[in-house]
């Protein structure tokens, strides 16, 4: 067959590329559902009208408390107030026995990265969506996908296996932080973030 060699080579390229672009993400990431489904939209929409910081608070010393503790949910959901099966599970399996919900945190950073929310939100005035995207208006929680090798959430790298994205809020790796700092005229040294 004419040009057989070239065709085999091109077929190889296609095979390798497919493995890298298509199949590799499936192999790399595990998928685990969150322990409960949670609708940000219900809580922030017209029904409840809450804002991000109603639950994702700062402590009096400025420390960001992150994912709210159980007592924040129990403040309203000490008993079921809706008809959602997940709300019922929240009350029965977590609030009533006082057991914290083992949420999987999409944006967990390594210990060697020091990120103060207070400096970015209070001082720099960044909106939550700038880094966390439309998460606050989501109607359900995405499946948590963890990198089998590094252990971190897929959200840190970004949905696209290449790491590139047209969405400003996708990805939470260091290069993104550095680029944003540079865009905003912040000249920081290593020790500012890696204390």
């Amino acid at each position, binding site marked *: 067959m004419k040009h057989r*060699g070239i065709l085999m080579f091109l077929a*190889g390229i296609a095979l*390798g590329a497919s493995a890298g672009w298509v199949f590799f993400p499936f192999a790399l990431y595990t998928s685990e559902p969150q322990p409960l489904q949670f609708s940000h939209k219900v809580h922030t929409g017209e029904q409840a009208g809450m804002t991000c910081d109603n639950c994702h608070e700062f402590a009096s010393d400025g420390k960001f408390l992150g994912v709210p503790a159980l007592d924040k949910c129990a403040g309203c959901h000490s008993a079921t107030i809706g008809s959602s099966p997940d709300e019922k599970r929240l009350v029965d399996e977590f609030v009533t026995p006082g057991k914290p919900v083992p949420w999987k945190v999409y944006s967990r950073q390594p210990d060697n990265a020091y990120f103060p929310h207070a400096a970015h939100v209070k001082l720099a005035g960044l909106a939550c969506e700038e880094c966390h995207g439309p998460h606050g208006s989501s109607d359900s929680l995405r499946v948590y996908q963890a990198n089998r*090798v590094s252990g971190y959430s897929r959200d840190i790298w970004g949905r696209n296996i290449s790491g590139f994205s047209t969405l400003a809020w996708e990805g939470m790796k260091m290069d993104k932080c550095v680029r944003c700092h540079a865009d905003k005229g912040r000249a920081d040294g290593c020790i500012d973030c890696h204390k």
Partner: protein
Amino acid sequence: MDLNRRDLLKLAGGSALGVILSPLPWKLLDDSAIWTQNWSITPKLAHGPVTLRYSACTLCSAGCALQARCVGNVPVAVAGVPAHPVTRGALCPLGLSSHHMSRHPLRLAGPVRIDGTSDRGRVEPVEMDPTFAALGEILRSAGKGIGAGTIAVLDRQPGRALSMAYRQFLAGFPEAAYLVPSHLEDETTSALRAMATADPGPMGVDFTDVKTVLSFGAPVLDGWGTPGAMMELFKERRRLGLRFIQVETRPSRTAIASDRWLRIVPGTEREVAWGIARVLIDEKLVPPSAIRSITDYPLLVKKIQEVDISRVTTESGIPSAEIAAVAREISRAPAVVIAGSDPAGGSLDPETRNVIALLNLLLAPSGSTGGIVRRGPMPDALKENVRPAMSLDTVPDHSLRLMIVDSAESGYVVSPEMMRRKMRRNDGQIVALSSTLTPLAAAADFIIPVAAPFEKLDETPHAPSAARESFSLSLPLHPERPGAGDPLSFLVRLTAAGDRPLPEATTMESLLRRRADAIQASRRGRVYLPSSRSTVAVADLASAEEFWGHLQAGGCWMDDPVKSPSRVTFRFPVPQEEQTRAAAADGGIILMPFGWKGATASAHVSPIMSKLFQESAVRDLDGIAVIAPATAAAHGLEDGMIARIATARGKKDVRVRCDAAARDGVVHVCVGPRPNGEDTPSSPATDELLSLCETANDGTWRITMATIEKG
């Protein structure tokens, strides 16, 4: 289509290229790097509640209070304690990283023997039980009587409760010595106490209302005493009308920061002090109250009037007008005169210390505030059944059978050569207690590992010349490390091995508790509580338990000033002989070692500070030779060049740093801080620089004649 081998190879090649053009290999590389950060052997940051705990640094005699920010009970950062009435919130770079010392790369895991037969010394692990058995045998034979050899303990932080335990232990031997270095920042107060006709008890330096501080070589603005208090005085000096005068050859930080610096010819401190005394006498600047406090005052005046000011000027290089100006200044308003030691240069000789101390007597009698003051003794100070303290340099050479070197650091060098000189030639043994393989410990025959800072309960050191006693606890911040006990546990085990009576207190907690109980029972003083920044009088405390509780929460006890101290008279020991001074030979140079407190050849600094020192020029490093440009040029040297210094005892290469403020004909060579990497656990480096220096019979090594040339 039949596939042949060539087809498969092309397919494989294409696949490889396709994979390379995909994110797979690059993403895996990136993720693998992150994966290595998660290995179990990678140290992890602590997680847990954030708490603030109080403790105190024990790396030198200053004993600065500190607060440690802890995460999950792991100290992650330390800082000074603001508003602390004793230490004033100060903490030096060594203290700021003191919590790292438990992980020092030269940390000792077990007892070692130093084989000193090779040039660098070799470290060999030994077993604890046979070591204690051998030491016990020495104690048993020492206890039998005269001639069996003197047992000694070298204590670089005397005055602690542990110091009392050592002295009680030594009291049980017919021949024993409780040794302290000759330079502990109490040179002046010790000299005055020795001159008193009746023992006035401990004395200190009180800076209240003092208008002039005249220091002969003491680094008063660079770590001396309680550094935080001294820096606060310096910061407020304009408002207080306080001036600093430094008499010193080297352009030290204190000299340069002082209001007046008398840059003397090396070794002429005594001459300058006599010159100042002569002016005080001639111009009748000695107040009547001072005259009354000195017995044999007419004899003293006669001696002082023999001082030839012009000869003082010639020998010291200080114009007579300047000497007179200093004398007038210190006589005008309350002043204090301090004799000091360079941390690595060693102390002044005893006669010089006496003359400098004399200046205080000529200015004013001792009181309870301002100047030299009497200090209330610690309530549990034992007078009986303890060995009196003696200076290391006064011990007869080759007389000691066993010397135990306590682990506490004063911040000042102890000459390893001086230590070894005191040991019996054939069977003298030095046992050092240390958490790391320090150069001083490496001069011993055996090293017994003890706890590093913040691993065990300890007593906070306090400045030897403090105006008032203080007491606080250096509370543990780290977990205990197996095999690294405190020095008291070593003493307990040693006494058991030697069939000696056990100490009255066998744990540090019980030892320190006894001291605390004695303080509480005295009802003297006040306790500062750092958590509330308040003080409470000891007399208002309900019980000893309450006092102990305050101490365990970081509290600090401060004694009251001595009220209405009784009048003390002094007799000055008039020297009979003239001092002869050696001069540098033609082409020679005077070598003067120097260092800075806490980071001399006796100790290590933490790894991070070792790195910072080597990467910055903030402090001179070990082996830097400071020399005047003209002197350098005369010897064919330039700034940054390697030079070789030679004395009668050996040679060493140094790096030249030209300083126009240095005196011609003198080279000041820094001893420490040493790069941690120079020593290895199996081969500790020796102090080449100090070994070049001549140690005189009076224990001084400040000045050595040397030559210098290109290296």
